[in-house]
């Protein structure tokens, strides 16, 4: 249960809001690199943190992210011409470079031209390609943090895959699904047996055999480690450990030798978010079968309405609910695919869930602590200017883990270095 004012504090991320200010401390995913595939390609509309922006890649391959609308008459630059190192408004020919600087106003007399151009600059943000993702930082340029170091984005290209989907609810209820491990034994029970990116791992048998997991939450420099234990062989527990790094990064514990996957939950506005989903293997290329399975929407990925980033199963078609599959146990909820099983339920809560009415139980400890840490960081930033956890790249060097440990061992001690990035070393997984 949260008080209404705290619910609003954590769910509102537009300009001028405390939570929006917190998000503006971080580099965050803005687009997939594939969305701007070549120089002078079509520009892409992007909304982030309730700001309407346009992204483009100029003639020299530089990326730009700036105010979507021309300073002249407010026309959308989505209709613009991306040519000769700038994006030109097709209404009157005003042209902007990747920094948002106006560089041409063709209608103005030559003698006034340059001085007028200098005075016109659209709000813009840096846009940087790391891995398969284009990252932006929407905060104070004077306080720009180091570039992100997430392992999934830094391994060689053949070892990783990223996708994104539009989720039609507030970012926080989507994130909370990512740190709530107790639902896996229920909602995703069908997928553990059949999904090509999940099935076959020894850990799955523990998952399916013990539906009443115990939780342990440990604070970390960048956020939390959420450990979930289930019974394993005599004298041992099976632990699945999920790192959450503030504000919006989660990594799902691995299964066998399958790639590791996880998400970024990025606010579009207060009632929509982007879910960036990644898969990577720390020490080997993804196989062609794995990559194809990801493209086909298995694992944490999904199928799309063609030509869009909207999931094929969405609220307009009742998520293609299959009651027969539900009855037969092929899927637990009747919705196909792990990603959409989560999204369908999270969207069903409404655009922004009313947390004053919820009835949390002990297994929601991770969610309670994550909210508390967000709340504390928002206040520390707002009141004292304290840089929040997760900005420091050292906080980003985390891994999830799935291990079997003796019953008397804590998961933090038992995992040791397994919860940290170890370049060239395999992840800890059963």
């Amino acid at each position, binding site marked *: 249960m949260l008080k209404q004012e705290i619910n609003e504090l954590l769910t509102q991320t537009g300009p001028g809001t405390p939570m929006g200010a917190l998000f503006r401390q971080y580099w965050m995913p803005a687009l997939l690199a594939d969305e701007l595939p070549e120089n002078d390609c079509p520009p892409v509309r992007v909304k982030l943190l309730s700001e309407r922006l346009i992204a483009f890649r100029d003639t020299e391959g530089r990326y730009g992210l700036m105010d979507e609308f021309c300073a002249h008459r407010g026309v959308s630059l989505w209709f613009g011409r991306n040519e000769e190192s700038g994006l030109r408004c097709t209404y009157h020919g005003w042209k902007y470079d990747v920094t948002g600087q106006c560089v041409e106003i063709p209608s103005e007399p030559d003698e006034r031209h340059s001085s007028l151009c200098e005075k016109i600059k659209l709000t813009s943000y840096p846009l940087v390609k790391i891995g398969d993702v284009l990252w932006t930082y929407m905060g104070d340029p004077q306080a720009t943090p180091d570039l992100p170091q997430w392992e999934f984005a830094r391994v060689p290209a053949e070892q990783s895959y990223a996708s994104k989907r539009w989720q039609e609810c507030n970012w926080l209820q989507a994130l909370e699904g990512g740190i709530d491990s107790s639902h896996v034994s229920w909602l995703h029970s069908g997928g553990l047996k059949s999904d090509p990116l999940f099935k076959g791992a020894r850990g799955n048998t523990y998952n399916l055999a013990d539906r009443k997991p115990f939780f342990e939450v440990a*604070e970390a420099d960048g956020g939390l480690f959420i450990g979930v234990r289930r019974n394993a062989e005599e004298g041992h527990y099976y632990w699945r450990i999920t790192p959450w790094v503030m504000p919006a990064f989660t990594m799902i514990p691995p299964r066998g030798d399958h790639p590791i996957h996880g998400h970024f939950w990025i606010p579009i506005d207060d009632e929509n978010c982007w879910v960036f989903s990644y898969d990577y293997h720390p020490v080997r290329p993804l196989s062609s079968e794995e990559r194809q399975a990801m493209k086909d929407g298995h694992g944490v990925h999904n199928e799309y309405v063609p030509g869009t980033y909207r999931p094929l199963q969405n609220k307009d*078609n009742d998520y293609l609910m299959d009651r027969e599959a539900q009855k037969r146990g092929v899927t637990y909820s009747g919705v196909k695919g792990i990603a959409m099983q989560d999204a369908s339920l999270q969207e*069903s809560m409404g655009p922004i869930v*009313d947390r004053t*009415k919820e009835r*949390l*139980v002990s*297994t929601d*400890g991770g969610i*309670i602590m994550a909210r508390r840490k967000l709340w504390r960081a928002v206040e520390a930033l707002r009141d004292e200017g304290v840089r929040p956890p997760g900005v420091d790249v050292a906080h980003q060097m985390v891994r999830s883990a799935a291990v079997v440990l003796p019953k008397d061992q804590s998961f933090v001690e038992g995992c040791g270095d397994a919860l940290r990035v170890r370049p060239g070393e395999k992840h800890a997984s059963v």
Partner: protein
Amino acid sequence: MQPQPTLLSSCARATTAAETRYRISCPEFTRRDSRVIALDEQAADIVRQLAGQPWSGGHFLVFESALPDDALLRPAVGGTALLSEELDGADAVVMVATAQASAEAASIIGNACAARSIMSAGLVVPGVGSVGQVVSALRPNAMVLVVLQDAGDVPELLSALRV
């Protein structure tokens, strides 16, 4: 794929902000009967302070000593109570502990909760000494175990659980 009409009961309509106005709004479900039990003297200071705040009916107690098949507790409001009596009708127990807590206290309360199918949680707050031992002691007995860096988070956790 055939386009489907948006009906009154369709997800497209049911998930809108406008439709949230029609959710049944009852003031409160049946009250949760919670017990917050300090396992050691340092934790007792925290629990006694918390007891003075407005809560939803939770009892705040301190573990005193083990008894045969039971335990003696000291309610923050004064007097004594038996663990077995406190657990009658309780549906959630939150154990608050520091590094000084005994494994025996955690074990007695945790086992009593398990025997009665009562939801149990353990909050380990920072204090003098390493919390490793108390965490190990609580682990088998708490459905969720949270190791805090700041004792100031305890009231927020209890509030979230509607103590």
